[in-house]
């Protein structure tokens, strides 16, 4: 029995659901456990009787809970299965024919296809159905055999990079047996005329099911050069919503490693099937392109291989004589440059410089003799595939090149002198061009009437002359001759490259001839006729999934077939190399637009995916169990046994705490950009005044050195701290020179400063103006200090009393000079009840360390030392000044000692008592 996408293995069990209402009534009748309550008013209740003996009903929601649990058990035991395999399908018998299109368009869904084929073959194997598996792109005889046999071959089954031709389909139809069988056809989604015929034939022999993937098919046309940019066009099979595909240009980097060179997003507008975009690349990079590919498509139709049409050939021009200044039109290279410039990269220089650059073509305009070395190099280059284009001229005519024997770099032997016709001193008219011979690459070009040849070099008549002439004059003398040398060729124009000897360079024919000779590039014209018969060898071929493969092992094809024949087993999409150029054959064919397939009405079309069969019984039973657990808790709650006693509440709180503890765990401390000092270090507040900060740094440096030399305190290098960002906790003493230039710190900084003060830190405020002002707001610095210190948590202050511990932590001091002298220093006030103990020289003052010391004696300036340890700033005069500096150091030592030891020295008041106790 099926219910939507759910089927039941034991549907009769569902009848038990009818018993649920009975259960409802039964459950209601069972009384819930009584609740025990403390109630002082029970005295008033005594003697009251219940009106009826029926107990209070179980609450409806508890009943519902139990009902759901029981229903879950019943349904779960009935064995529900999600997405069941249709039984009819599973138990079908008889032969099964599986046809796949296996074209490049199938490649995009091939993994899904293969998975489904696997399932299908496994099923057929279980049911013992004889099975045949055919690929439409490589039709074979229909052989029904055990499905397992096919299944074992499945991993080797792959689509082909071409589409089935009508002949292939016909061959398949012929091979179909006349028995009845079921057919499953995996279509690639492309419309073809012959599909209908095959479908009819198959339908006559049994039911046909079509499987088709749903992924949209996008193909890429080969790039076209438009306005110096590459124009790329992507086509999709069916118009639809807006869609963006990314085209990746693959190529090699300068070192030859394949990599993606550029990407170009193409967006299909809604309802459009074509998207075009332009990709502008430097010509150097363009020459390195190998293919374009639409990312993520995974089939050969989304790959467009590039060939010579994209790359600009490099042409080296070498003239035999120096340019005559000012006579540009007479330059032997002028017309060549004009003809080649738009489509080629021109190189110029001497032959020895150019040959290492390995240009595609070298043009020698009226160059007669070459040195032996140049000859050898040029010959080697030509044999390696170069095209040497030579033009005649007065020098060539005058030289002895190829006079007696044919020179390797000349197509023919030349007669000495040459001839001039139609001139003032000669007979006859200037000659016209004769129609191009059969085997000429120029065949088919129109010969303009106005092309006249007045001078030429003459070839020696030879048995082989006729086959080397590819263009001649009306009198039968050769105009252009050609000889193949190794993989390359040597072409000789028997006239000059300028208009001196003929009008040929002035005509459009000249450009077309150069083009046919593959001197120029990028015109996209069809192959020259002489290459149609040549054998073209595949270099790279595409697999159906669009992966380039080496085509070494494949046979060559003729040029005629290469361009026109449909793709098939013997003509794969790929890059083919001919005599002097490379031609790419891509899947995209502008003449045959792809169309989506239209199946006739009533054909059964299915997708490639099948929902997996999922038994739900276990889940339902688990849910029922969960509901029963909830019922236990609810029943306990109803009878009051779940009442949160103190113990359970505490337990719950602990459990909750345990749950939340990991969440509340402190986040790892944010990375400090300031290094944490490993040793004790003194610190000063960065005020923003560079000079002040420098003095403070130098001062603390001097103090640190003094401490190092004189005491057991061995501080690290002093640190400047930024109140806004730095952590203060590492520094026991903070020296804060006050300057009105310093901005008021932020509230966060003050919060941290207060924490610092409360946790035992000390700040030494220095207004540095004791020479001009007393304590208070009388000076600018003092006023600013008041503003700076207002938000700080500072206790009442008093001038350092004579018996303050600061006066005796290390040295005995009575005043605390810095660079200035005299102004009192303020510290935390002593508690009012401090008393002098009898016999003691000082009172027992406050127990802690004063959080602030405020003064104006400019201590840092007195402490400051430069890099070599000499004082930076003068203090006082003469010996008295040095004494004052010494006292300043002593104050610093006392201060640091006070910070580090607290009231240790104050505790000396207890010494007599301790001695007394020891004496006993």
């Amino acid at each position, binding site marked *: 029995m099926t219910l939507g996408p759910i089927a039941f293995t034991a549907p009769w069990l569902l009848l038990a659901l009818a018993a649920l209402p009975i259960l409802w009534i039964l459950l209601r009748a069972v*009384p*819930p*456990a*009584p*609740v*025990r*309550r*403390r*109630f*002082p*008013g*029970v*005295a*008033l*209740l*005594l003697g*009251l009787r*219940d*009106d009826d*003996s*029926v*107990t*209070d009903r179980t609450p409806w929601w508890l009943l519902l809970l139990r009902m759901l649990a029981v229903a879950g058990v019943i349904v779960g035991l009935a064995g529900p299965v999600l997405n069941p395999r249709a039984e009819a399908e599973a138990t079908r018998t008889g032969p099964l024919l599986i046809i796949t299109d296996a074209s490049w368009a199938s490649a995009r869904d091939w993994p899904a296809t293969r998975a489904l084929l696997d399932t299908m073959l496994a099923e057929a194997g279980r049911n013992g159905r004889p099975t045949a598996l055919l690929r439409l792109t490589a039709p074979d005889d229909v052989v029904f055999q055990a499905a397992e046999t096919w299944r074992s071959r499945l991993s080797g089954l792959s689509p082909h990079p071409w589409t089935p031709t009508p002949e292939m389909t016909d061959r398949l139809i012929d091979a179909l047996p006349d028995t009845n069988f079921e057919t499953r056809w995996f279509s690639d989604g492309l419309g073809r005329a012959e599909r209908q015929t095959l479908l009819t034939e198959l339908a006559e022999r049994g039911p046909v099911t079509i499987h088709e993937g749903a992924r949209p098919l996008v193909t890429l046309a080969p790039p076209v050069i438009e306005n110096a940019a590459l124009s790329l066009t992507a086509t999709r099979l069916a118009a639809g919503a807006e869609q963006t595909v990314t085209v990746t240009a693959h190529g090699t980097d300068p070192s030859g490693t394949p990599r993606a060179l550029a990407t170009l997003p193409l967006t299909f507008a809604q309802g459009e099937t074509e998207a075009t975009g332009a990709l502008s690349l430097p010509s150097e990079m363009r020459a390195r392109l190998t293919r374009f590919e639409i990312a993520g498509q995974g089939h050969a139709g989304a790959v467009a291989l590039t060939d010579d049409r994209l790359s600009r050939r490099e042409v080296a021009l070498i003239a035999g004589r120096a340019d005559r200044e000012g006579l540009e039109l007479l330059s032997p290279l002028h017309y060549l440059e004009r003809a080649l410039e738009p489509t080629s990269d021109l190189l110029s220089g001497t032959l020895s410089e150019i040959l290492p650059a390995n240009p595609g073509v070298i043009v020698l305009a009226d160059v007669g003799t070459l040195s032996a070395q140049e000859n050898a190099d040029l010959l080697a280059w030509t044999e390696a595939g170069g095209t040497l284009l030579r033009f005649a001229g007065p020098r060539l005519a005058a030289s002895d090149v190829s006079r007696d024997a044919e020179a390797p770099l000349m197509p023919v032997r030349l007669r000495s002198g040459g001839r001039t016709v139609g001139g003032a001193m000669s007979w006859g008219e200037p000659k016209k061009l004769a129609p191009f011979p059969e085997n000429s690459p120029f065949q088919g070009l129109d010969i303009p009437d106005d092309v006249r040849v007045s001078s030429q070099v003459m070839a020696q008549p030879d048995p082989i002359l006729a086959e080397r002439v590819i263009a001649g004059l009306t009198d039968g003398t050769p105009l252009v001759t050609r000889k193949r040398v190794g993989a390359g060729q040597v072409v000789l124009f028997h006239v000059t490259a300028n208009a001196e000897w003929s009008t040929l360079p002035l005509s459009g024919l000249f450009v077309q001839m150069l083009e046919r000779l593959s001197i120029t590039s990028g015109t996209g014209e069809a192959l020259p006729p002489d290459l149609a018969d040549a054998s073209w060898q595949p270099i790279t071929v595409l697999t159906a999934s669009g992966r380039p493969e080496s085509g070494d092992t494949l046979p060559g094809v003729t040029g005629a077939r290469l361009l026109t024949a449909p793709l098939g087993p013997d003509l794969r999409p790929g890059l083919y190399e001919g005599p002097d150029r490379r031609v790419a054959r891509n899947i995209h064919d502008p003449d045959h637009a792809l169309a989506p397939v239209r199946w006739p009405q009533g054909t059964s079309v299915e997708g490639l995916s099948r929902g997996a069969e999922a038994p739900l019984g276990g889940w339902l039973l688990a849910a029922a169990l969960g509901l029963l657990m909830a019922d236990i808790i609810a029943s306990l709650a*109803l009878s009051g046994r779940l009442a949160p006693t103190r113990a359970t509440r505490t337990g719950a709180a602990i459990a909750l705490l345990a749950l939340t503890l990991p969440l509340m765990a402190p986040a790892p401390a944010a990375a400090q950009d300031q290094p944490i000092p490993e040793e004790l270090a003194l610190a000063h507040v960065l005020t923003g005044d560079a000079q002040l900060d420098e003095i403070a740094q130098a001062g603390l440096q001097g103090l640190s050195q003094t401490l190092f030399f004189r005491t057991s305190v061995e501080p690290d290098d002093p640190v400047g701290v930024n109140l806004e960002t730095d952590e203060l906790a590492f520094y026991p003493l903070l020296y804060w020179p006050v300057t009105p230039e310093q901005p008021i710190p932020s509230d966060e900084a003050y919060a941290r400063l207060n924490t610092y003060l409360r946790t035992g830190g000390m700040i030494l405020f220095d207004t540095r103006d004791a020479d001009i002002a007393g304590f208070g707001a009388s000076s600018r610095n003092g006023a600013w200090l008041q503003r700076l210190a207002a938000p700080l948590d500072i206790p009442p202050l008093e001038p350092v009393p004579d018996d303050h511990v600061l006066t005796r932590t290390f040295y005995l001091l009575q005043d605390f000079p810095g660079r200035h002298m005299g102004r009192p220093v303020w510290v935390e006030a002593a508690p009012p009840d401090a008393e002098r103990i009898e016999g003691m020289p000082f009172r027992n003052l406050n127990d802690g360390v004063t959080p602030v010391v405020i003064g104006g004696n400019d201590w840092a300036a007195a402490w400051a030392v430069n890099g070599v340890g000499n004082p930076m700033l003068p203090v006082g005069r003469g010996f008295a000044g040095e004494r004052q500096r010494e006292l300043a150091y002593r104050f610093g030592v006392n201060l640091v000692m006070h910070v580090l030891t607290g009231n240790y020295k104050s505790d000396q008041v207890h010494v007599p008592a301790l001695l007394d106790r020891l004496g006993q």
Partner: protein
Amino acid sequence: MTHDATLRTRAETQAARLPALLARADHLAGTVLMGEHGRRRAGQGDDFWQYRPVQPGDSRRHIDWRRSARSDAEFVRQHEWQIAQSVMIWVDQAASMRFTSSDAQPQKADRARLLALAAAILLNRGGERVGLTGHGLPPRRGAAQVARLASALMTEDAAEYGTPDLSGLKAQGHALFVSDFLGEIGGISAALTSAADRGVRGCLLQVLDPAEESFPYRGRTIFESIGGTMAHETLKANELRDRYLDRLATRKTELAALCATTGWRFHCHHTDSSAQSALLWVHGAMSGATGRETGR
């Protein structure tokens, strides 16, 4: 359990909001100790009462010469006779008082102690002497007595329901009984009538939990007394509600009627309402402000 010091503190807080309580001065024969209650007759005291002509037997020293000089007769200045009154307090310490239906309210016993001690403080401040029945704590005055009261109030009784203890109750005195009065009505009425027989007048303050007033229970329930000695099982607690409330109303009516016959005052206080209102009532009842009875 609340420490007596905190009880004292809270009681002082409550009492501080009311003026000094002067318990109604009534004729209490045989109580001769001086206090600040004017007896509306001449006697020992500080306040002026009247001038009366000199009668034979008056000492010459008692003649008010200033008044006498304004007329021909001679007058004697008399002061109002002032006495202090003893108020005995009984607070139910039985188990039934140790109940609260939710954490939001104090236990009934807690509230009862608080009210009793607050009243004691007020009375003390008004110059009355306050004692506790059944604890051997005779009526006295002063802050020390308040401290003794506070500690005596912290004792607990194991009995399920309390019955007013009349021991130490002086004839013609005043009394304040604080309890939930949910126990046997017989014991309560016997105690009240016995007290009334001795000429004691006073107030009954019934302290109830809101749950006892609303009976918000449903379903199959076993109700147990606080001490656990009594139990009552019902299958449908919600059906019992109306009858329970009837009985509670009857109990209140009985108590009110009992008070009416004995000349006492009755008030019911719930622990979820403010203690101040109850104290105000006690203040009014004890000072007679809520309705002066015709003096005897």
